[in-house]
């Protein structure tokens, strides 16, 4: 028996505040597919993925229909290809990328993540082949996502890998110059990459997991924004502690929705349930924006002084709400601030409220990093590597995940507009000040040692 308020507020969350399940991601362990023979390997991964994923989309749609909650994206994450395809060369890695892309199309999912190398402490032969294959693999496929973990708090930052990946990003951009460097939107560089994240482009399935697992990514920036607005309308004198409580309670509800849907999908598919990743992930739709939450909190725009504090409060409240709702919260579980994917954030950058430096500062307190940031196409590998290294250092020192998804847009300069389309959105290219191309720091290579607080044993 539900009262009118409970019925209406639930319907309101779904219909007008964009509450949805952003991604149901089926993780598939490919370690039992390992072979030195490329054809055998491709055959095995095809068989295993299709066996586990053939019903994924149908089941997600049916469960979404039952609860009236849309499962927007159905995706697959796989074991790191750098490990399971370690015997193969770069051209063979490209072939594997095509096979994965074909399988993704066959099972009707929009993205498959796991074209991944874990190189924080060194680059093994499989990882080297994968990094070398990245530009071509990403340029020639549509549904494959890649990630490279170059740093951890326990291992430090592999600066050789940072420079290598910067080179790969530049090449990938050039190969997709006619699409504003779109290939780079499918590549994340990480510090402390989570093994169970359902969100793309960084999703992959870590080691030490079962054959298949369902991880769910729930979003809900619109729901959080409306909850804040409603509360402030009722009582304009609310204090920040009380507002944080409202965010926490809302995050708790949203997490429970994700777990409900995820568990039912998992049960129907007879696959283990993994985690709910409660991340406030925006879309380019009005009302589904992280940037708008900053305005609800009384700031002119994301990026103005006070933004980092507001984001810290938001991110923490979201985590606390998620932790209260479920014992199986994982992935990133925080707030994303992807520039082009959030209409409001893109506008803030456009109007000059948000610079790359401010974005970097904000990533110290939120769950990702410099995400979907278009930069000038003529940026040097060294400058790109410097930006990535800075972001990785934030993750390493603060014992948290950070990432970059930078897009050097060929032939375009700061202030020019780029269009990626769909959920990837559009934005104006951000200026990267003080890029002199004379700095040789990143060229020293080697590994920045792990911080002292990593020694916990």
């Amino acid at each position, binding site marked *: *028996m*539900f009262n*009118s308020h*409970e*019925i*209406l*507020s*639930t*319907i309101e*969350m*779904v*219909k007008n505040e964009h509450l949805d399940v952003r991604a149901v991601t089926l993780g598939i362990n490919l370690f039992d597919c390992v072979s030195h023979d490329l054809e055998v390997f491709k055959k095995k991964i095809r068989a295993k993925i299709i066996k586990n994923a053939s019903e994924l989309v149908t089941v997600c749609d049916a469960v979404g229909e*039952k*609860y*009236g*909650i849309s499962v927007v994206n159905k995706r697959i994450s796989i074991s790191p290809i750098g490990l399971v395809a370690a015997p193969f060369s770069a051209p063979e890695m490209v072939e594997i990328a095509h096979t994965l892309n074909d399988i993704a199309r066959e099972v009707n999912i929009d993205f498959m993540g796991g074209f991944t190398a874990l190189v924080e402490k060194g680059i093994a032969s499989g990882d080297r082949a994968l990094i070398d294959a990245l530009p071509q693999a990403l340029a020639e496929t549509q549904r494959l996502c890649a990630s490279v973990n170059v740093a951890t708090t326990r291992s430090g930052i592999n600066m050789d890998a940072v420079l290598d990946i910067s080179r790969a990003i530049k090449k990938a951009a050039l190969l997709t110059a006619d699409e504003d460097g779109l290939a780079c939107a499918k590549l994340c560089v990480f510090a402390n990459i989570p093994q169970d994240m359902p969100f793309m482009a960084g999703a992959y399935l870590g080691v030490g997991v079962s054959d298949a697992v369902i991880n769910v990514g729930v979003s809900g920036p619109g729901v959080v924004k409306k909850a804040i607005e409603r509360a402030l309308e009722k009582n304009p004198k609310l204090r920040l502690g009380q507002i944080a409580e409202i965010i926490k309670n809302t995050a*708790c*509800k949203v997490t*429970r*929705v994700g777990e*409900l849907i995820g568990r039912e999908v998992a049960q129907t598919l007879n696959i283990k349930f993994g985690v709910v990743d409660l991340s406030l992930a925006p879309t380019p739709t009005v009302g589904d924006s992280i940037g708008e939450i900053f305005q609800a909190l009384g700031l002119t725009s994301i990026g103005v002084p006070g933004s980092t504090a507001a984001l810290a409060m938001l991110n923490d409240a979201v985590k606390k709400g998620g932790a209260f*709702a479920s014992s199986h919260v994982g992935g990133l579980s925080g707030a994303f601030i992807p520039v082009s994917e959030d209409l409001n954030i893109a506008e803030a950058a456009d109007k000059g409220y948000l610079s790359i430096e401010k974005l970097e500062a904000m990533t110290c307190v939120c769950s990702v990093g410099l995400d979907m940031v278009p930069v000038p196409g003529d940026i040097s590998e060294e400058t790109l590597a410097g930006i990535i290294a800075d972001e990785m250092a934030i993750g390493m020192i603060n014992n948290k995940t950070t990432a970059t998804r930078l897009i050097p847009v060929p032939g375009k300069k700061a202030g020019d507009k780029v269009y990626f389309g769909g959920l990837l959105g559009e934005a104006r290219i951000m200026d990267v000040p003080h890029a002199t191309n004379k700095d040789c720091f990143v060229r020293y290579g080697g590994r920045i040692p792990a911080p002292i607080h990593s020694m916990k044993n």
Partner: protein
Amino acid sequence: MDKLIITVLGKDKPGIVASVAKSLYQMDCNIQNVNQMILQNEFAGFFVIDHPPELDMEKITSRLTKDLEGKKLQVYIDELASPANGLSNGYEIDSGSEETFLITTIGPDQKGLVAKFTEIIAEFNVNITNLKAVFKGGDEPSANIMNYQVAILPDTDQAGLFKRLRAKAAELGLDISIQHKNIFETINKI
């Protein structure tokens, strides 16, 4: 022992439940279950009771009517149908396998709204377990809301029912949501 269901109707005021309960207590009756609602200032109360064997339905009715005299209340007493007996239309109550859905329509008020939807629900032999209608009149869509809680059995043509309901809502210019009750529990019952 057979149970009785007592229905009490009348203008709402303080003390109705107390008067009924006192009278039943004095007759040594045991209230097993009770529910009440107030609809636009009208009280409706339902009491399921056990009664001593020597007291039949007639005696209880007579005593209760006497005790409530002057309070302008109407009292109806009947034997409580056992769930095992099913409903008169052949619909078997099966609380184990049914799935509860909430159907909510939002949109301009119009005559025959409830009739049009309940007719479809009945055609599929689906039982309505709760119905809330909040008609405030006028054309403000969010002010006119109907919510039907229905129990759907495994052999019900669920897809067919939902399709018909959605088509009817579209025809009447209403916004319709059909959702399993667990989503409301998940969001609201923490």
